[in-house]
């Protein structure tokens, strides 16, 4: 008899929906169906049973083909690489559990690694801005229960966080928001008319690259000062009108995404968006939140935070001190300068997201990739070690985009003999210990 597992957490995006129902075969091996998930989330579970999944480590041969090796061989090779390298980039972590990260950090501290997560090419600029000016924010339930003005700026949850709007930000009825969508005014600021813009009451098309100027104009308008006729392609009358409307909110929220973090101005865009939010708190209650992408990238920042005091790009290569400096200890810069001697990738696919030059640099170094699937990075690695899917085949803690921690659930067994991230990292850690005891370094 197939059985249903309820309250399953979706390991896809930072929305971290926790109401999925997954139907599992009697023998706990196959997923038969997924309810409540968005199309991407459902696919994440369906991947589990796809034919052709790699179930044993693979080592690249001289001719470019891959040969299956044992876990023991892969672990030994990896540990040797880590111990030999004086500076190893240990990047990824955004799709694994906090417990696995913790073991990874222990290894990094011993071998002198640099631990970085995908914030480095994502919301890193938001983190820089928060390091500069702080951030007034809230949990997603606050938005559901209180928010009557919602601004989406440079983000497109309709595609990137598909259930965000129905669970938290546009449609749900909450304690003080009994009218749901009808009681909220939704703004969308973007340079393109996105599918999120279609859900908004008002779409404000900002000229590409003029987000900073427009945010600055909002702050200016909020203080009742004069504006030029248009800012970033938006007429001043419109700006005054919107700002007055935001001031009359009972509870307002700005959500922002890559449209702010990776356009002209970068961290300065976030900085001024936060300052606008701060200003609005002189009139009413206002919050702002980054639309974090990977389901547990926030968790990586948290674990690094409590262990070393920085949210990403943590350089442990001195072994007696943790350092963090954007541009210096960040992955892309390290690779571009060819400053690391080996690469260790886990639970993220830099090959798909890093600039080409950085990956060319990476491909020339000893590289190990730990990932359940074949991806762009595994194909330029010396070793690919497959692992169980976290959130599907093994549980573990994850942090939602609002930093709320949720323990993900195991719904099916991993393929026979496939290790979890935690098991694999523990064994690498032991092997590193053995090699170092022998005087590896």
């Amino acid at each position, binding site marked *: 008899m197939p059985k249903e597992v309820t309250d399953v957490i979706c390991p896809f995006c930072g929305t971290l929906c926790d109401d999925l129902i997954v139907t599992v075969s009697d023998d706990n091996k196959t997923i038969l169906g997924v309810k409540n998930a968005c199309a991407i989330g459902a696919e994440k579970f369906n991947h589990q049973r796809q034919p052709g999944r790699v179930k044993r480590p693979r080592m690249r041969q001289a001719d470019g083909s891959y040969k299956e090796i044992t876990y023991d061989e892969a672990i030994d090779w990896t540990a040797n690489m880590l111990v030999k390298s004086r500076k190893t980039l240990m990047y990824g972590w955004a799709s694994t559990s906090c417990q696995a990260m913790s073991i990874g950090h222990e290894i990094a501290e011993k071998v002198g690694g640099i631990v970085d997560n995908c914030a480095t090419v994502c919301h890193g600029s938001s983190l820089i801005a928060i390091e500069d000016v702080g*951030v007034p924010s809230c949990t997603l339930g*606050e938005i559901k229960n209180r928010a009557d003005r919602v601004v989406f700026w440079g983000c497109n949850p309709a595609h990137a966080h598909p259930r965000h709007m129905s669970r938290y930000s546009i449609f749900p009825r909450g304690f003080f928001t009994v009218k749901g969508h009808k009681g909220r005014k939704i703004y969308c600021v973007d340079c393109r008319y996105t599918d999120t813009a279609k859900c908004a009451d008002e779409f404000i098309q900002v000229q590409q690259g003029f987000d900073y100027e427009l945010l600055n104009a909002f702050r200016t308008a909020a203080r009742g000062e004069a504006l030029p006729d248009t800012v970033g392609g938006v007429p001043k009358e419109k700006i005054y009108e919107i700002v007055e409307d935001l001031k009359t909110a009972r509870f307002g929220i700005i959500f922002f995404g890559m449209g702010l973090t990776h356009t002209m101005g970068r961290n300065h865009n976030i900085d001024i968006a936060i300052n606008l939010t701060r200003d609005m708190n002189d009139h009413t209650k206002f919050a702002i939140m980054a639309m974090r992408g990977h389901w547990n990238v926030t968790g990586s920042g948290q674990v690094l935070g409590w*262990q070393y*005091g920085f949210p990403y790009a943590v350089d442990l290569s001195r072994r007696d*001190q943790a350092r963090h400096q954007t541009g210096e200890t960040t992955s892309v810069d390290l690779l571009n300068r060819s400053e690391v001697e080996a690469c260790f990738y886990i639970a993220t696919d830099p090959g798909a997201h890093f600039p080409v030059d950085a990956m060319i640099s990476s491909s020339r170094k000893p590289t190990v990739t730990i990932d359940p699937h074949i991806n762009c990075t595994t194909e330029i690695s010396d070793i690919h070690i497959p692992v169980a899917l976290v959130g599907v085949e093994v549980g573990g803690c994850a942090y939602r985009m609002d*930093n709320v921690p949720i323990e993900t659930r195991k719904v099916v067994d991993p393929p026979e003999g496939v290790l979890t991230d935690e098991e694999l990292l523990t064994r690498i850690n032991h092997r590193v210990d053995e090699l170092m005891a022998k005087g590896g370094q």
Partner: protein
Amino acid sequence: MSEFIIKNGHVFDPVQGIKGDKKDIAVKDGKIIDKVGSGAKVIDAKDKTVMAGALEVHAHVAGPKVNAGRWYRPEDKHFDSHKKPGITRIEGGKSIPTVFKTGYEYARLGFTFAMEAAMPPLYARHVHEEIHDTPIIDEAALPVFGNNWFILEYLKNHEVENTAAYIAWILRQTKGYGVKCVNPGGTEAWAWGLNCLTIHDPVPYFEITPAEIIKGLIEANEYLGLPHSMHLHQNDLGNPGNYKTTIDSLRLAEGIKATNNFGREQVLHSTHLQFHSYKGTNWGDFESGAKEVMDYVNKQKNLTIDTGNVTLDETTTMTADGPFEHHLHGLNHLKWFNVDVELETAAGIVPFIYDPNNAVFASQWAVGLEIALYAKDPMRCFITTDHPNAGPFTRYPRVYSWLMSKKCRDERLHSFKKADKVISATNLATLDREITLYELAQMTRAGPAKCLGLSKDYGGLAAGMNADIAIYNINPDKFPSDGPEIEKAFANVAYLFKDGKICVEGGKVVDMGHKQTFWVDAKVNENKQVMHDIREKFLRYYSVNENNYPVPESYAPHQHIIGVDATKA
């Protein structure tokens, strides 16, 4: 497990009334015993001071706001952030140390237990992840209740039994230890950008006052008979003139008796009292209200307090008092962090520099010391810095030096740029009292242990108690008169025993011990009403499902569960 005999030390133990007499302490299997065999390892404590491990009654050391403080303040790692000798991991941060540093530093100071003072239930897993990673010391965490919708709704109708049932449920879900209440009603008001500054200000929508919340939570706490009492951060923190609201709040405990099986006598613990003992109407005519507040506290036997001593450092303020942090940001314009937590609470963070050249900060420093020096019963007054709000806990040795040496604190007082103003705004210059080593053991060991309901195992050196022992390089017969010397002696224990194992030796961490997480499991009668309300609130208002709310066992692998039976209450 190995046996030890600690010989010839000057023992200070309020539990047995030992005031510096030379006495041997025997240790076996993690406990203090009467006698050990001849094979026991001898620790020579000649000319040294021997006390039980200290207990931290109120500090922010683990959880979402502490961690936000860490990662949004990279500059805090500019100070004292590196690996130290011993088997330690990299240590980082000054005012908000990383979890590793937190554990090591407490141990080096002679602490063996710390209470995380504010756990938002929705973030309980995060708190426990950090507690799990904090080495050596035992820890527990207090969930916050003062702005929780369930509590507001039950107490509006004075439903104490339902309140108690809900508290019991939350303690189990979050692996929590007791009842914390921060700015009652004010933090819920803050969700709309408002606040409650007196205990009679109505909470928007919920039609209840802070006074009703405070009293109701005390009653629910005693209904359950929890090991710790209600733990209160009053309304109107940090504002001139607030001492009246403070005394009004404390009065709510009058006539209520402690009901518990743990030897606890107080029904209300009032925390970081320094921040709540101000007279005057603005920062210009600001004055100390410590005397007025402590006169009241000294009379009321069912109260305990902790000080919240300002250490005059650059630090990071953080509290579930969201509106206060917004207000503070308005004063110093440094970076402001805020999180509102659905149905439960909020938190704010602002870095803060207590500049000794500023008369107000120097006066706050004096007020904190006055609180401790006015305390008639050291078993009811505990030393804290409300870490990291008034200063980092690593400054305890310096606070001790100010309290234990009049010379030392007068030197500091008279060297302030605005010393005249500080002296006229406070009473510190008139106080001659010097806290003794025995009183220090009461204020940092036996007192907090009793207040937390842990006096059976913690805070003393009697046979049968935990072998948590701190040995300091202090000869009481030649007690140092010099501030820095006192500080140095308390900053690095000669030995720290945790559960009978040496974890720190000569200031160096040599063992990670066997850290435990404490939580309270209170049994109550089945309460259909409360269970129905919980179901409903999760279905309709929370952003997580009820089944994903509890903290799993794996987060507290070494848990110590204190059971309480309130089914016959």
